[in-house]
C-alpha cells in the first residue's frame, strides 16, 4: 500500500453538526498539504486520523493500518504537532522532548540522546535547558515539532505549523518541513490555511471546504494548463469590463491596486487569448494599460476550488 493515508466515506459529527461529509481520497506519501479556510475540517480530519475523534461512519487507514482497529500502532508511527500550545508542565525542553520519546517507546537513554538531536535540528539547541513555560510563541512551535519528531515517525501531522511565528522563524520552519519531507524520508501532512506555506513545502494538496473535498491532486497538475491567467489594468469602467469578460466566459478577480486577474479557460495559444481580452476591452469602451501573462499559483487553484465547490 503506497498511500500514506486513505479515507473512505469518512463522516464526522460534532453532536448534531456534521463536520466531515463522507470524505474519500488517498493522500500519497511525501509532502501533502491539507488546505482550506478556517472551519473547513482540516484539524478535525487530523484528530480523527489520530483516533481522538471516533468517526460516525467510514474507514481511515494510515500507512496501511486501520485507525479504528489499531489506533495505538498507528500513533506509534506518526508524529503530531498540534495547532494550539501544548506541553507537559514543569519540564525543561530537553526533559519534555525526551519524555515524549519515552512515551513513544524509546529507551530512556535513546530518548534523551534523540531529544538533544531534534532540539538542535529545530533550532532550540541553545535554549534546551530552559523550562518550556518561558518559551516565546515561535519557540513553542519549534518544540512542538521536536516532540513530534523525537521518536522518528514515518508520518508527521503538522497542524498550522507556522502559526504566530515571525517571518524569519516562519521561513526556517518551512525549510525544516521541506527538508524532512524531501531529504529525510519523513512523510508529512501539513494542514494550513496559508497557501504559500503549503505551496512551498508540499507536492500534493487536498483542498477542503465545509467538510468536503473541493480539490485534490499534485500541485503541478492542479496548476496545469487548463487555462491561462492574465494580469490586466484598465482605464475606464472596470465593472462593465468585468461584466463583459464574464459574459465572454472569462473569470475576473480584483486583486487590489486596480489590477485584475483574468482567467481564460481552454486555449493554450497566447495570442488569441490576449486578443480576446483586448476585444472585450474595446467593446466595453475601456483602455487597456497593462496586460501580462501570469503563472497560475496555488491561490488560483484554491480560489477556483472553493469557488466551484
Amino acid at each position, binding site marked *: 500500500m503506497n498511500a500514506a493515508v486513505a479515507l473512505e466515506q469518512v463522516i464526522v459529527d460534532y453532536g448534531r453538526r456534521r463536520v466531515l461529509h463522507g470524505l474519500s481520497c488517498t493522500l500519497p506519501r511525501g509532502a501533502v498539504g491539507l488546505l482550506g479556510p478556517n472551519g473547513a475540517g482540516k484539524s478535525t480530519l487530523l484528530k480523527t486520523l489520530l483516533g481522538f475523534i471516533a468517526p460516525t461512519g467510514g474507514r481511515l487507514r494510515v500507512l496501511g493500518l486501520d485507525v479504528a482497529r489499531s489506533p495505538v500502532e498507528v500513533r506509534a508511527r506518526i508524529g503530531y504537532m498540534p495547532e494550539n500550545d501544548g506541553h507537559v508542565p514543569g519540564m525543561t525542553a530537553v526533559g519534555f522532548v525526551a519524555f515524549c520519546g519515552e512515551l513513544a517507546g524509546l529507551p530512556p537513554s535513546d530518548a534523551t540522546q534523540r531529544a538533544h538531536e531534534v532540539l538542535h535540528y529545530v533550532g532550540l539547541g541553545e535554549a534546551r535547558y530552559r523550562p518550556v*513555560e*518561558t*518559551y*516565546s510563541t515561535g519557540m513553542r512551535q519549534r518544540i512542538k515539532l521536536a516532540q513530534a519528531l523525537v521518536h522518528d515517525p514515518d508520518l508527521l501531522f503538522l497542524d498550522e505549523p507556522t502559526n504566530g511565528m515571525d517571518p524569519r522563524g516562519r521561513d526556517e520552519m518551512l525549510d525544516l518541513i521541506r527538508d524532512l519531507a524531501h531529504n529525510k524520508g519523513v512523510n508529512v501532512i501539513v494542514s494550513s490555511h496559508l497557501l504559500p506555506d503549503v505551496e512551498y513545502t508540499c507536492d500534493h494538496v487536498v483542498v477542503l471546504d465545509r467538510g468536503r473535498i473541493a480539490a485534490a491532486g499534485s500541485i503541478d497538475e492542479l496548476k496545469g494548463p487548463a487555462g491561462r491567467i492574465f494580469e490586466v489594468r484598465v482605464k475606464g469602467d472596470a465593472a462593465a469590463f468585468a461584466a463583459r469578460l464574464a459574459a465572454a466566459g472569462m473569470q475576473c478577480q480584483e486583486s487590489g491596486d486596480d489590477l485584475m486577474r483574468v482567467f481564460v479557460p481552454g486555449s493554450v495559444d497566447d495570442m488569441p487569448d490576449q486578443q480576446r481580452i483586448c476585444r472585450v476591452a474595446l467593446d466595453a469602451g475601456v483602455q487597456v494599460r497593462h496586460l501580462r501573462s501570469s503563472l497560475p499559483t496555488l491561490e488560483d487553484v484554491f480560489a477556483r476550488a472553493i469557488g466551484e465547490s
Partner: protein
Amino acid sequence: MEQATPRPGAGPAGTGVLAASMRVFDLSLGRMLWSRRTIFTALVAGLPVVVALVLRTLLAFEVPVMQGGVTGPVVFGLMFWGFVVRFAIPVLAVFYGTALIADEVEDRTITYLFTRPIPRASVVLGKYLAYLVCATSVLLPAVVLTWLLLAPIDGALAASFPDLGVDLVIVVVGFVAYGALFAAVGTIFDRPLLFGLLFVFGWENLALALPGQLRRASVAHYLQGLVPHAMPADTPLDVLQRAMTGAPGVLECALGLGLVTVVGLLIAARVVSNREYVLEH
C-alpha cells in the same frame, strides 16, 4: 497607600486608592459573580437549604426524622455551626481570597491591571470588596432561607429571630476577617490554597483543641465566640474541652477579628505593591 514612585504623566493624576478600588470593584464584581466559581459557592450555600427542604418534606409526610430533643431552631443552629461557620465561611474565603491576585497571575491578565494608572493596592482592595459582596450575596440569602424553613419546626420564628440577626452579622464578619487573611496568604505564597486549607482544617482545629492561649492565633476562636447557638458536642472529650476553654467575650472577638482584617489587608496591599510579577511566556 499610594505607590512608592508615582510615574510622571501617568494618566489622571492623584487617583486615590479608594476611588481606584471602587473602579476595580465595579469591574471585578461581575466577572467574579458570573464565573464558574459561583457555581461552587452556590452549591456550598445551597446545601443547607436543600437539607432544610428535605427535612420539611419528610416532616410533612410525618416521617419521624427529628429525635433526641431536637427542634427546628436546634437543627438550624447545628447547620449554622456545621455548614456555615466551620465550613462555608472559611472555605469560600480561602477559595476567593487566595485567588484575588493569583487568578490574575494565572490568567496572565495582571499586566492589564498593573499597567493602569492606579495604585496597586487598590487592585487588591477593589477585588477584596468584590469578593465580599459576591460571597455574602450568595451565602446570606441561603442562611435566611434555611432559617425560614427550619425555625418554625417545633419552634418559634420570633424566639430565634434575634439569633438570626447575630448569625447574619457573623457571616459578614467571618468573610471580612477570613477574606483579608487569605488575601494576604494569596499574595505571599505561590501555592496559597494549600496553606489556606492547612490553616483552616489543620491549624484552626488543632489550636482550638489545645488548652492555653494558642487558640488566640486562629480566626475561628473569635468567630465562634460570637455564635449564639449551642455548639454540638459529641464526646465527653468535647464537653471537657469546652469546660476548659470557654468562649471569648464580644469585645475580644471584635478586636481579634478587626486586627486580623486590618493586618491581612495591609500585608496584601504591601506585598502586591512591592512584588515583581514575572509571568510565564
